[in-house]
């Protein structure tokens, strides 16, 4: 299995997290996303005509799009079926709903970060405002989930790929000027994700303490 990877990409980080949680060995093919724009090179455009990362090669299969790759990996390599609960229609629907929400986070919080860190030209105020709108929704959702004794975005006592799809650009939001101070339930959820066995860091993501014994 080969991951076309850029260390600073939150979307690539989603896949690294998933593979680590599943304990799968994989090969990394580093891509010079910035400043080399290697993702727009002929070699990579052949693999993904959209010119985006990540790209996963597994045997003959070539997949693009972080959420699609998460779906594939969880369904194929998680025999417990917890990360992608295909046998439970209610939870499956919730997962799909929040995967779409994660695309919204990418379009807003990630855009603001691309503007601030990689100098993309875009309307950063609109991107930040959009991120705050989504974070308000996510914080409210997680606050009420906690009231019901639930730790994760979707119901059930195990995290799903919806958590992984939403996490990276939430935890990196401050690099795009989006503070999480007003979202305490999101901040607690981030701590819980960081305590999952197999969790790995990336540049800009900091560790949290061990849970109390």
């Amino acid at each position, binding site marked *: 299995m080969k991951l076309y990877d850029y260390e600073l990409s939150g979307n690539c980080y989603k896949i690294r997290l998933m593979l680590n949680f599943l304990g799968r060995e994989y090969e990394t093919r580093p891509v010079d996303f910035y400043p080399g724009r290697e993702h727009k090179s002929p070699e990579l455009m052949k693999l993904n005509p959209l010119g985006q990362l990540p790209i996963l090669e597994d045997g003959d299969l070539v997949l693009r799009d972080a959420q699609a790759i998460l779906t594939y990996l969880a369904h194929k390599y998680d025999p417990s079926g917890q990360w992608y609960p295909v046998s439970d229609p209610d939870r499956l629907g919730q997962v799909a709903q929040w995967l779409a929400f994660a695309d919204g986070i990418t379009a807003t919080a990630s855009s603001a970060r691309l503007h601030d860190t990689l100098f993309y030209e875009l309307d950063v105020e609109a991107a930040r405002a959009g991120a705050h709108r989504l974070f308000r929704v996510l914080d*409210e959702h997680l*606050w*009420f989930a*906690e*009231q*019901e004794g639930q730790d994760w975005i979707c119901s059930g006592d195990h995290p799903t790929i919806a958590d992984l799809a939403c996490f990276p650009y939430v935890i990196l939001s401050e690099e795009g000027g989006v503070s*999480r*101070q*007003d979202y*305490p339930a999101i*901040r*607690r959820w981030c*701590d819980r994700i960081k305590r999952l066995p197999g969790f790995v860091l990336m540049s800009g993501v*900091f*560790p*949290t*303490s*061990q*849970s*109390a014994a």
Partner: protein
Amino acid sequence: MSVDPGRWYPIASSSDLPLRHVFHGQLWGREMAVWRADDGHVNVWENRCLHRGVRLSIGLNEGRELRCLYHGWRYANRTAGCTYIPAHPADAPARTICNNTYPAIEAHGLIWSALDPAEDFQEHTLLVGADVLALRPIPVNAPPSLVAAHARSYQFSPTGAGGADVSLIVETDGFLELRSTLGDMTTTLLLFIQPVDAGRSILRGVLTTRPDTPMPVLHHHNRAMSALRDRIEAEAATLDAPDPISVSFTPVDEELAQIPARARSGPKAELRVTVARKWALATDIAGFRFEAITGQLPTFQPGAHIDVHLPNGMSRQYSLTNAPGETDHYAIGVKREPESRGGSACLHETVQQGDVLAISAPRNNFPLRRDALNTILVAGGIGITPMLAMAQTLEAQSLPFELHCFAQSVAHLGFEEILGRLKDAVTTHLGLDPKATGKTLAEILKTRGEEEHLYICGPGPMLQATRAIADRKGWPDEAVHFEYFKNTNEIDDSSAFEVALARSALTLQVPAGRTILEVLHENGVEMPSSCEQGACGTCLATVIEGDPDHQDVYLSAGERAAGKSIITCVSRCKSKRLVLDI
């Protein structure tokens, strides 16, 4: 609303503070790091590390200490004092390195604080003893006064169904009491407006009675308050946004951040404590728990001791046995010495539970490194006391260590509760004669592992033996740390010499029969001291020139040979003139 530093506001919900989390709060522009220690205590601190100003809200709540994410400075539960600086692993941080804290009260599902409280926290009369329900707080991007003006028109219902009649009962600055009636149902809501900054607020509501099924009620208020927020923010968008409140910080003195501060002259008894508990810990060992009469006891680090001033006029040093974060008391264990000169006998016989004693703030001349790959703690008899503080610190941080306790018998050992918690790390060696003790020590110190450190505390002969064995087994001086109870050396004070104080530009004569420390004090030179018998190291001075005549038990052989330091309460000078860096 204008900045009111004297008033108490809710700044977080209790449910915002699960264990091992740091909440990011703010009041009147001041950011706060809010965290609950494992013992339940809620800390509200200024949200910046004293070292480089990094937010402590991204730090690590380790249950007993909060660790800054940047350079790893550690701060104690309650006191907010720095307990460890990884860049200076062999030093005890100065007690004056202490974060700015704010008061914290947990009540009614909320955490309350004030920047500079004008009076003690007062519970709202409607909330006293009530089973209340804290609502989901709603942050609003609008000035507190605008939020307050709109909050008057907040509409809600006891059941969530429409048609309820809402009336405003009380309104004060930043607070409203609202009552909603529907049929024979009535709900009272206390709505607090937390001033986050000039242009930001948080609506925090509490229902004075907890409904039987809270979830629908929580959802109802969340929807209604979110709608209220939309109206407020729509109006705020038409107004000029106020500038954020500017906050000034007191920078930390660069020198303070580097080295421990020098205490002032002589033994000090700056604290008054009550003996909250006195109990029999083991054969001939009494345990004492001291609590502050008012305020907070100062920060301690593992290895620290206090001077206890006794009713009979004597003063004695005792190591604290506290685990890290146990900052609401000091605990000591006192062995009754058969040849007591009056210190331990007085504590055993005269001092009783409820008594008030004068003690010094903790001093640490026996600091614990937290960067060793393994730490061996060797305790002889009552020498176990500083080892308990060290062992519990290493345990809390999951650092590898072993604690070897030498005692006459189980009955003499004591501290079962703490030793029980440390479990597998503890080995007891009971009833060994000096020869067997030496054999056991030789086994323990057989080979020094990489970056392994040894700490010893116990009676003089055992300490000498352990140091000699460690030396034979190739342990370098800097890896062997020790603390004597007392100096049993025969002090020879027959020499007379001259002491020049280089920084003070003062030359003094030390005659036979007087100590350097006494001469310094008589001439108004500040020099801290504690045991005044050459055991604790408090009165250490740096030697610039001269040949010290070491008579203490504090300095290591290497330190003695280097001739760069002197313990001024007992040691003297072989040459005619001694130049000190004072």
